[in-house]
């Protein structure tokens, strides 16, 4: 089973070092394809776009998700139930429906597709994950913490900033990393909301994979995998430390 899971990825990685252009026979070791990735201007441009989009998406998702989680956790108000359901919609909704619905929205209000529309789309499917992560952490938080801060004379806003936010930091960080990875990887929704100038790295990979095989694409994939795995391992580590923190008596 593990062979089925890892096999294709290992093959992909091994052949990224092969001197032969066709993938069949092993002819020798080379780093030439990695050099080609580096020298490929459209690819590097797309990588830059992806990084910028993912960074802005992460910041906005954290702000929106954390504030939203606190609001839904702490206050009862009319429409809270509806808001909670709505937060779940982008998580569950099939990506293609989300993509085309955003496309028709931007068309209807005559906003040209580009960098901003990609960021809006990414925030829409990323921030619910931050919100859910923070909400889970809030549920395990002792309400006495905030009460103590208020009793000691802090204003609710100061109590939130000085007491609650530090307690939430592991969940916020984990949510942020998740948002970043999701944004870096996403293809379908991006496909409908990006212009050719604002193409992200996965969109370029999609275009290249359609054309056919190229060892350069293997090399690019390997770099992408290594980066993703690094982010995931960091997230894992943080979640573990946050779990041990919350289980402390």
């Amino acid at each position: 089973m593990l062979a089925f899971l890892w096999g294709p990825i290992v093959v992909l990685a091994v052949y990224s070092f092969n001197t032969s252009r066709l993938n069949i026979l092993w002819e020798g070791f080379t780093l030439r394809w990695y050099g080609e990735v580096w020298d490929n201007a459209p690819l590097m441009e797309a990588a830059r776009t992806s990084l910028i989009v993912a960074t802005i998406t992460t910041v906005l998702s954290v702000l929106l998700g954390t504030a939203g989680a606190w609001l839904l956790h702490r206050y009862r108000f009319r429409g809270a139930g509806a808001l909670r359901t709505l937060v779940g919609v982008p998580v569950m909704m099939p990506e293609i429906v989300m993509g085309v619905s955003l496309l028709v929205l931007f068309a209807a209000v005559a906003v040209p597709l580009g960098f901003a529309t990609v960021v809006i789309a990414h925030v829409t499917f990323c921030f619910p994950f931050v919100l859910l992560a923070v909400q889970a952490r809030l549920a395990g938080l002792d309400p006495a913490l905030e009460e103590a801060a208020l009793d000691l004379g802090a204003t609710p806003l100061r109590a939130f900033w000085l007491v609650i936010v530090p307690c939430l930091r592991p969940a916020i960080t984990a949510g942020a990393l998740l948002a970043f990875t999701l944004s870096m990887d996403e293809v379908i929704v991006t496909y409908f909301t990006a212009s050719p100038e604002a193409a992200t790295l996965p969109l370029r990979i999609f275009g290249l994979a359609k054309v056919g095989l190229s060892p350069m694409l293997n090399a690019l994939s390997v770099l992408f995998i290594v980066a993703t795995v690094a982010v995931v391992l960091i997230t894992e580590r943080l979640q573990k430390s946050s779990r041990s923190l919350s289980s402390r008596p």
Partner: protein
Amino acid sequence: MTIPVQPTQGSAQLPRPARWFLLAPLAVWLVAFVVAPALILLVYSFSERDELGRVVFTFTLENYARAFDPVYLSVFGRSLGYAAATTAICAVLAYPVAWCMAQARPPWRDRLLLLVMIPFWTSFLIRTYAWITILKSEGLLNGLLLYTHTIAAPLELLYTPGAVVLGLVYAYLPFMILPIYGSAEKLDPALIEAAHDLGCGPWQSFARVVLPLTRPGLAAGVMMVFVPAIGMFAISDLMGGARVPLIGNVIQDQFVGQARDKPFGAALAVIFMLIFVTVYWLWQRRAEARVA
């Protein structure tokens, strides 16, 4: 319209501007980018397009009538069939893996979980490309078979229905493994022992004890594989070529492809959404019935 924000009982209230500071962005974002797009899509689905491909707002059911044309019905049927096949294969492959992971000792359990999950944290696009390099007529598998003289000419492996289902299975397998693992992990081993003590064979205790108790995880996995597999167009695009269009390919073609019929695409998307909502609703109702 004002939404009165009341604090939960026994706790202090935030000052009014702060409340709005918290509430407004969330509500505005969800309404503007989740509710509004869905409504516009719905309106589009009842509209027409003019000769230039622009959308003209009229009220027509023609788009929906067209969706029930045999051509598109067969696409819907194929999409559902592929998704069902993908779900079934995923369930059969994932169940034993999830079960073994749940039975492993704790330190090994985490390591196995990570080993299973890492391949799937990498973009599905790259994983699909990995299969293309293997299956293509000048790819690895054909190369190996030719080299060993097992075959005389390259086999057509890519751009077949089998390739599409393989790609879908490979993409969605973790969504099946994780929920099954989640419910298998919670299973009390004493229950299986009890079944043994009461004279159940391994097969009987699986069918009567293990399967019913892990069914919620299995149901969640089915839900998480089946629905996205229906609409996925990138995998059928890459591994099926244009030969096996799924509903996602048809929708995509109406919006950004050559067909350029947004109202019709919107109608297809709305129908797809209805299928999704129905499956989700049935699933939730069954889950609730089980709890009650």
